[in-house]
């Protein structure tokens, strides 16, 4: 089956096997299997309601599978202690909610919570991780600003930095580029790519197929609660599959320089 680490392949850190999940009576996932390794940037694509966000919440341990099993580095994220899961896996939510205007640095420091005691007084390791995350996300100059004074794109970077300061091994994104302009979309994808190159396993729910195809190592296509394709972007994003899954006629081409597939809807 899967090659052992001795042969040069790391064991998959994300391992989902035959998972099914229902919200009440409504099925959301059916027999989903997926694995991902450290250093990989995997894009989860598919139409609305395909089950992508549900899968991310199962991976983060926020939901428990009805059937099948989810493992993160051998740990069941829905039953393991929350702090242990949070040290292993960070989630960048789609729409983070903040009731009070914390400063950027305070929000990023929240990522250290799973490694801090009750009073959560930060130590040198915490400060180091926070400063590193602020630098990685180009937030040093905004560190003492209130988060409600930032633009949407800047705010998104703050929550990315918070996830980095968690020092996780798995990084989950729920639509990191939603509501961002092109420049901020590209910046978000570059940060995710950099995290993967740094050795994290990055999984992102993405809606922009061209951005996903350009940035991800692998795409997993979901439709009606099932995984219908899993592989390299060029192999997965055929015109036929896009037509079938998204029910939209498309023109499919290729970026002449990178070889990444390009799909354009035909109106």
């Amino acid at each position, binding site marked *: 089956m899967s090659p052992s680490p001795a042969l040069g392949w790391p064991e998959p850190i994300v391992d989902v096997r035959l998972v099914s999940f229902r919200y009440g009576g409504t099925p959301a996932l059916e027999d989903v299997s997926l694995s991902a390794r450290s250093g990989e940037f995997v894009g989860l694509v598919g139409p609305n309601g395909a089950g992508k966000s549900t899968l991310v*919440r199962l991976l*983060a*341990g*926020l939901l428990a599978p009805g059937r099948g099993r989810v493992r993160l580095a051998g740990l069941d994220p829905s039953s393991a*202690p*929350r*702090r242990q*899961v*949070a*040290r292993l*896996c*960070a*989630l960048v*939510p789609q729409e*983070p*909610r*903040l*009731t*009070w*205007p*914390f*400063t950027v*640095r*305070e929000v990023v420091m*929240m*990522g250290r*919570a*799973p490694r*801090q005691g*009750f*009073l*959560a*007084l*930060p130590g040198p390791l915490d400060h180091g991780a926070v400063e590193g995350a602020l630098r990685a996300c180009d937030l040093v100059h905004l560190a*003492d600003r209130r988060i*409600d004074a930032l633009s949407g794109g800047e705010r998104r970077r703050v929550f990315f930095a918070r996830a980095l300061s*968690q020092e996780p091994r798995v990084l989950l994104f729920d639509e990191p580029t939603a509501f961002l302009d092109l420049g901020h979309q590209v910046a978000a994808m570059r940060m995710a790519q950099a995290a993967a190159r740094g050795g994290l396993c990055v999984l992102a729910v993405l809606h922009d197929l061209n951005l996903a195809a350009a940035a991800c190592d692998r795409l997993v296509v979901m439709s009606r609660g099932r995984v219908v394709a899993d592989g390299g972007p060029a192999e997965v994003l055929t015109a036929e599959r896009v037509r079938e899954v998204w029910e939209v006629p498309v023109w499919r081409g290729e970026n002449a320089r990178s070889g990444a597939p390009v799909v354009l809807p035909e109106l």
Partner: protein
Amino acid sequence: MTSLRGRLVVLLVAGAATVLAAVAFSSAVGPQPISFQAAFSGVEPDHAILLELRFPRALLAAVVGAALAGAGVALQALLRNALAEPFVLGVSGGAALGGTLVILAATLAVRAFGPGAALFFEGAPVALGAVAGAAASAVLVFGLARIQGHPVPETALLVGVVFNAFASGLITVLRLLVPPEQAARLLYWLLGTVAYQGAGTILAGAVGVALTLALLVLFSGRLNLLTLADEEAASLGVDVRRTRAVIFFAASAATGAAVALSGMVGFVGLIVPHLVRRVVGPDHRLLVPTSALFGAAFLVMADALARLLFLPLGTEPPVGAVTAFLGGPFFLWLLRRSGRPQAGGFA
């Protein structure tokens, strides 16, 4: 960037100094002028006025103020809204109802078993009844205000108002069941009175309040995360359900203790955390202990001013009337302010 520890130390020292100054002021003022020097060297009546009347009363106000401000911060974190407060949310009303039920039980027991039975209902059982009433009403109000798993602040405030009306109606009926003299005492208690309590009562209250505040301080790092969405908090390592239960308990216990000691004193938990937040920011590791200290100083001063301003009339209003007088307009101002569109979700 000053360190969190440094800021915490500065705030604790400033808060403690303010409390001491307030207690000293409150001990000094009253209808009968006294000299501290005479009081400490045992000259009567100065000695008795200071150590048996004014100082214990200031201490009681400090304990109640700290409890209410701490409970206010905790409830604001749970509801994710700056308008949450034990009195406004009906938690104080629940505590008053719980305490009244115990007092009624005592009256009935005395009727059935003779005066000795009252011993089992004085003091501690009333306080426990108040804590239980506070917890029950908090669970009820927050339970009814959850829509699709998320607390809706406006609904919680409405439910709190309705619950308050319901509780005070019920208390009015219950008051008819006790002897007139006790009914009058009950009424005065419920108005929010920092009265002259015995040293044992004050000490027990202080210990209980200190324990619940310590619990809140211990959980203050997690309170920061609880102000985020539930799933976000969970993804940052918080066991949301368990943590919320602990905070509920601490806020209810603090409110119950405050109500048992001095009845329904409103708005302390609204005014003080809001002002403190403006200075120290929203970090609960600073906000919880600082609010508790300034809450203590605030109520001590409110009580002293109530005494001072009504001196010419030869009477004094219950301190609950003073805090309501200040707090009502403050609440409305805060409501208008947080409703402004540019303020967004940030109160």
